């Protein structure tokens, strides 16, 4: 197996804080090499170094056996490297085809028909069912993720870096991605793969390299290790066994949604969530889950239907009004809707609490509120003064969770609660949601991860093409049944489907 890329003794620090220490990494032809580590371990930083976005403080890089210095992403591309970024890097106003070919269009004069035709096969390969002429701003986050993948394919790169490519994909698209990866490696392409999902790593990876706190822990053959061993390498200790989901007895109806609809997005959606109950909206990409959740919160307006909170109709839901009534909302698009990138962690965390008058903006007062939250969620670096943009993706997600924990709410709407969050923290967040429910909080979430859906939900509402295709209780829910409802492949009389 010829070596495509190798990195030795890579060191990198940001304003005095060392993020990578003596890290080694190598990638062979046709290999999938997974990179594993907790949130903030330095995975993205290493990858950005390999893609020329950061310059290492010291260390050597070689591509195809030749030692290189990558000054810029352009240089990396010239060496046959492509990258799928953890934070999506698309241009909203341009079409899918334009985004896929950006920087690669060929002649100066653009021929859209030709570009669309060129892009179509790549879209088909990743299983993205949108027209290449659609503006990217009209796609959901998951569809955008697929566009990113298609773009990497279109580069015809020898080395593809994938930084959490599946964090917003559902099981179906993830399987599609597996197929794409296998096809690529069969052709000799090397893939660097970052994911917090062990099943993906077990499915795809040949070798696994583990980072912990910026330190190189080791590289192992994937086939030779167990999940537990990998987790131990990652966190430096053994993880407590997973809790079974607790048994809950829901209280009164907190949220009642009746016949909610908006043309082109969703239609006739009705359901309710009780206090102390966790209800999940499941479904395929573009099935309208996000849109429903946003409409309930008033982030977008619905055209018809009603939202009732604790038996009272909310005349015209708006985020501010819903917040005042004790509703919290965690959006799926962290970067554009979740964080204020240039503000500190403390500010990002306290945005809602301030409005509720729960805490002031003075340093000590705020620290008293912020620090325990950071501790509880294991947010690293544990520095409330850090600008949130400089946190790793997973840690940013934790800050937004903490925003609503600090503010306290009776109904929490969460779109993809553990997007980009590492295994260890994921267990913590599950425990946290359990304890919220136990305290009587009603939780309505959207999740694309079926194990997560099954682990957390009391009830699952499966959506298909904008309507609720069916509802499954905890006992009835299984991955197969959810998928069957989501794709419309059920119709067996014995299925316990209540529409």
């Amino acid at each position, binding site marked *: 197996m010829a070596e495509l890329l190798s990195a030795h003794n890579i060191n990198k620090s940001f304003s005095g804080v060392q993020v990578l220490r003596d890290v080694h990494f190598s990638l062979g032809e046709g290999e999938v090499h997974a990179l594993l580590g907790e949130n903030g371990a330095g995975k993205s930083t290493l990858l950005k170094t390999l893609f020329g976005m950061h310059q290492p403080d010291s260390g050597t890089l070689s591509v195809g056996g030749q030692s290189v210095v990558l000054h810029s992403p352009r240089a990396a591309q010239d060496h046959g490297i492509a990258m799928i970024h953890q934070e999506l890097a698309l*241009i909203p106003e341009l079409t899918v085809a334009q985004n896929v070919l950006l920087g690669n269009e060929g002649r100066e004069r653009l021929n859209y028909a030709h570009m669309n035709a060129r892009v179509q096969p790549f879209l088909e390969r990743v299983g993205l069912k949108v027209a290449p002429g659609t503006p990217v701003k*009209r796609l959901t986050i998951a569809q955008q993720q697929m566009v990113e993948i298609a773009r990497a394919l279109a580069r015809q790169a020898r080395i593809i870096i994938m930084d959490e490519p599946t964090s917003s994909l559902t099981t179906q698209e993830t399987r599609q991605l597996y197929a794409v990866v296998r096809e690529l490696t069969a052709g000799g392409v090397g893939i660097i793969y970052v994911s917090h999902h062990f099943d993906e790593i077990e499915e795809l990876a040949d070798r696994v390299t583990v980072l912990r706190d910026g330190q190189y822990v080791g590289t192992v053959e994937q086939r030779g290790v167990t999940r537990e061993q990998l987790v131990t390498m990652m966190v430096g200790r053994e993880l407590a066994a997973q809790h079974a989901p607790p048994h809950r007895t829901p209280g009164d109806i907190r949220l009642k949604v009746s016949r909610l609809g908006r043309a082109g997005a969703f239609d006739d959606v009705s359901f309710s969530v009780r206090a102390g109950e966790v209800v999940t909206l499941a479904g395929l990409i573009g099935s309208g889950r996000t849109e429903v959740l946003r409409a309930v919160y008033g982030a977008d307006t619905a055209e018809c239907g009603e939202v009732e909170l604790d038996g009272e109709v909310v005349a015209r839901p708006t985020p501010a009004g819903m917040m005042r009534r004790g509703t919290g909302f965690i959006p799926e698009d962290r970067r554009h809707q979740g964080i204020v990138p240039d503000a500190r962690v403390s500010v990002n965390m306290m945005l809602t609490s301030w409005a509720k008058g729960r805490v002031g903006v003075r340093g000590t007062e705020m620290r008293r509120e912020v620090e325990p939250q950071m501790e509880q969620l294991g947010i690293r670096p544990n520095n409330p003064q850090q600008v949130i943009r400089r946190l790793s993706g997973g840690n940013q997600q934790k800050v937004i969770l903490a925003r609503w924990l600090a503010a306290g709410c009776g109904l929490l709407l969460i779109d993809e609660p553990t997007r980009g969050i590492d295994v260890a923290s994921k267990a913590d967040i599950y425990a946290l949601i359990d304890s919220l429910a136990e305290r009587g909080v009603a939780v309505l979430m959207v999740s694309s991860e079926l194990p997560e859906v099954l682990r957390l939900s009391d009830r699952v509402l499966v959506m298909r093409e904008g309507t609720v295709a069916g509802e499954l209780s905890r006992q009835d829910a299984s991955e197969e049944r959810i998928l069957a409802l989501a794709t419309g492949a059920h119709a067996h009389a014995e299925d316990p489907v209540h529409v």
Partner: protein
Amino acid sequence: MQKTQSTSNAASRAAVIERLREAGILAILLLGAVVFSATVPSFFSVDNAITGIGLSAAINTIVAIGLTYVIMTGGIDLSVGSTAALSAVIGADLMQRGLPPLLAVVVALAVGAVAGLVNGLLITRVQLAPFIVTLGTMTFYRGLALSYTNGQPILSLPDGFKNSLGGDVFGLPIPLIAALVLVAAFTLILRYTKTGQYILAIGGNAEAVRLSGINTGRFVTLTYVISGVLAAFAALVLIAQLGAAEPILGNGWELSAIAASVVGGTSLAGGKGNVVGALLGALLLSMLQNVLTLLGVQAFYQLLATGLIIIGAMVIDRYTRGP
């Protein structure tokens, strides 16, 4: 497959609706024209439309095209008026000294290009804020123009020059034709060339464009060069009309051009732009001026009316276009 079909249908329907909504400003323009021609005597004579509205709209449009390009990248160019003055006096001076007009025109355009290049390099290489750079050069280029001519106008330009840029073709004044041709050309560049696409993309997400391996600085600089050249061209068109060039020419052009751009639907945040919109914006603003004059509205009330109508037009536009 069926899903794809319906999604793409919905998408193209949405695109059509968007296009229609973008025509909001055109609708306002037409509505205005109809109302005015009904109420204001002599508003809708061809002659009034062409000479009263045409020239000032043409010049404003030409400058606004460049500004639209700059604004699309998320920048701004306050120096257009001064660049115009500098190019005009240098070009005029060379003509007066006997340089063939064509050559003088080329030199004047080159002066505009260099002025834009300086802006662009300060912004992309030294990474200064576009506002402050062009505020500085606005003052500096004006100073250059004034000291070059010692504050005096340059009179009596050669007839050949005046007739070529100041004349008519089939009854249409050349400035108007030039503006329309430029609008068409820069619309096509924006839509159908890599350069145009990159300029739009940079305003949308410069970091993402850079990550695609594109040298964003080069394209940003290019927009300032375009803006400088178009300002110089507008200045040449104007001095051909006036038959003279003066160093105080172009005062306030930046504001009118930005206004035309923004009224036409370009977002100052970058990433969204519309050259045809700039033309419509310029026409709307000129029409407004023209009508108020024809109605004999006094200066103070003209100000009131102008302010009200700009905002009113935008409110209508906002409600036809949707949020």
